[in-house]
């Protein structure tokens, strides 16, 4: 069983603080469908074991965390889930056009990492950006109206699903060119260091972006120039329809940072507390030592790449394996066991998330289309 880069790396603090954020890479790997070593009947059993292991460490972390924050984390995760489910529904009704990439299954990554930030910290991400935008503070109304191409959208209907932005919330956008934002995020961190602002930059991208040149160019510069940036590779295991194993010769993404002598960790993206702990360690590194970190956070995309993707490249069993240890279910079970939240709390959170999503839909429906004059504005400053 290969050890992870993170367990070998002296910069990872997980062993020290006992948060257990470093998952076993072997058990996290997708099962090969052809010539598999593990039968599909064993998949769910394997997932259950992993789930139990995860529960223990999550409970430990929960005990050390403020109750209000825990509630907010769960709320943001549930809101992200309900919001995206609605997006799928209204997309099918033709209310959302163009590309629409959903975040279902990956909520623990955005919530775990971004709720560790200060409001002035900067965030940039890929086109799978609805949930990041909301966690950073853009209202669900403005995100949904943007999806609807309405003037009430966060960028006045000019960007759509892939391009949520808010200068006020230091949200530097969803970006549509795979990997492009890794370089831009590096530049944001460069500016923070130049100005001495103390801001941290969180830069999200998918695992497929790791094969782009910009990933390697960026990590090289970030370590060379000691930039306060946290690269979060959201490994959802598929670049569109191509599995990671069909696209990447060396699949240990965290370890790729070793090529740049950059601190790195592998994190279980189904465990929101593990994501939070790893992000906090990276924030410390960025703020105290002005050093970058690469976090590979393994999750699983339940839905297709975008709404136009039927997902014929994987089995139902594979999806079921991951749903067995769904990040929201896992977190709820832990919160319950730790007696932090009651069933009543869960109901209230669920109700709030559903109502907020409904309000967003209503706002988006009622928001006017952009005035034709908007076509020609914002081309030049």
């Amino acid at each position, binding site marked *: 069983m290969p050890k992870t880069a993170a367990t070998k790396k002296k910069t990872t603090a997980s062993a020290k603080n006992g948060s257990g954020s470093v998952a076993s890479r072997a058990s996290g790997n997708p099962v090969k469908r052809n010539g598999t070593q593990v039968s599909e009947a064993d998949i769910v059993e394997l997932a259950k074991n992993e789930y139990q292991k995860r529960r223990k460490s999550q409970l430990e972390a929960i005990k050390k965390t403020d109750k209000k924050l825990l509630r907010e984390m769960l709320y943001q995760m549930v809101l992200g889930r309900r919001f995206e489910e609605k997006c799928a529904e209204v997309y099918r009704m033709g209310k959302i056009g163009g590309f629409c990439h959903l975040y279902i299954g990956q909520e623990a990554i955005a919530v775990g990492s971004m709720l560790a930030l200060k409001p002035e910290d900067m965030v940039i991400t890929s086109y799978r950006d609805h949930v990041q935008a909301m966690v950073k503070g853009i209202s669900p109304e403005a995100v949904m109206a943007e999806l609807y191409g309405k003037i009430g959208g966060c960028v006045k209907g000019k960007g759509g699903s892939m391009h949520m932005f808010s200068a006020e919330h230091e949200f*530097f956008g969803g970006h549509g060119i795979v990997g492009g934002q890794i370089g831009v995020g590096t530049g944001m961190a460069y500016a923070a260091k130049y100005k001495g602002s103390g801001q941290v930059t969180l830069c999200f991208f998918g695992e497929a972006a790791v094969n782009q040149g910009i990933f390697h160019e960026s990590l090289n510069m970030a370590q060379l120039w000691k930039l306060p940036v946290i690269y979060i590779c959201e490994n959802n295991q598929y670049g569109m329809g191509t599995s990671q194993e069909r696209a990447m010769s060396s699949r240990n993404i965290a370890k790729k940072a070793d090529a740049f002598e950059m601190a790195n960790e592998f994190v279980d993206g189904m465990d929101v507390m593990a994501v939070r702990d790893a992000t906090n360690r990276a924030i410390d590194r960025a703020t105290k030592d002005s050093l970058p970190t690469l976090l590979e956070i393994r999750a699983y995309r339940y839905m297709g790449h975008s709404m136009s993707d039927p997902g014929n490249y994987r089995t139902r069993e594979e999806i079921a394996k991951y749903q067995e240890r769904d990040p929201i279910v896992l977190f709820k079970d832990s919160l319950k066991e730790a007696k932090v939240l009651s069933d009543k709390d869960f109901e209230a959170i669920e109700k709030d998330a559903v109502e907020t999503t409904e309000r967003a839909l209503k706002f988006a429906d009622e928001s006017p289309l952009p005035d034709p004059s908007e076509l020609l504005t914002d081309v*030049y400053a």
Partner: protein
Amino acid sequence: MAVLTIRDALNQALREEILRDENVFVMGEEVAEYDGAYKVTRGLWKEFGDKRVVDTPITELGFAAVGVGAAMAGLRPVIEFMTWNFSVLASDQIINHAAAMLYMSGGQFKVPIVFRGPNGSAYQVSSQHSHALEAMYANFPGLKVVMPSTAADAKGLLKASIRDDNPVIFMEQERMYGLKGEVPEDEDFIIPLGVADVKREGTDCTIVARSMTVPLAIQAAEKIQQEFDVSVEVIDPRTIKPLDIDTIVNSVKKTNRLVIAEESHAFASVGAEIAYQVMDSAFDHLDAPIKRISTAETPIPYAKNLEALALPDVDKIIAAVKEVCYL
């Protein structure tokens, strides 16, 4: 006024803007310790140090991206491409990111950045080092494209570009770095973007030239004056985008004849755009079809004679003027 080379005029513009605004910094390959591959940044690193003048690895896409992100976060980067040929590696950041950012963020994120360096041919540097890319960049809304042809223009336009809140493509020409001219010494000497300059007044034919073809067009005009007593007006748009089409159209309304001289492949070139716009605005004023002198439709060859054949020169421009003047 001081007499400076274009190289030194650019250097002065950079120095003054670094002094003027603490958010201005210069970044690129060999710009600092090496003093610049073409010495445009000579002395700046010694004077201002590592923070303001930054050597990068050979990583064009990477440092262009750093510039875009830094500009979004409030700085005013001047990114040097050793030559514009290498910008093609970085074109994703220029086209998909810098150019589109303001629009797709609904007006929230400006990208005040200058990308600069030499464009077009040099001296026998062959097919991968001789590209003239202004038509490509001018095609994208959101970008401004600037091409100076004199020392004063180089300084005034670079300062204006650095102070501009948009991404600016600033294209120099290696063959022209040593050209001298008078340059105002005022630290706030600015030439606004989007204003053409009449480099030589005339009444019988208009030549629109830019960058390297401006001095060639002026030479051609002098020869034609002497040989045929034909008065040629030479207009340098200086900024390709936004294009000051009014100055060109007004000239054509006076001369009724137009030659466009450009160091650029003809197909879908800036000259093609100017020809269309003149046709659209001054069709009835034209006494002859518009003639265009461009670079040959080949990759640029190495051999000295072939390279010369491929590029515009004084004789080719004279021949074109004679043709539109029916001489």
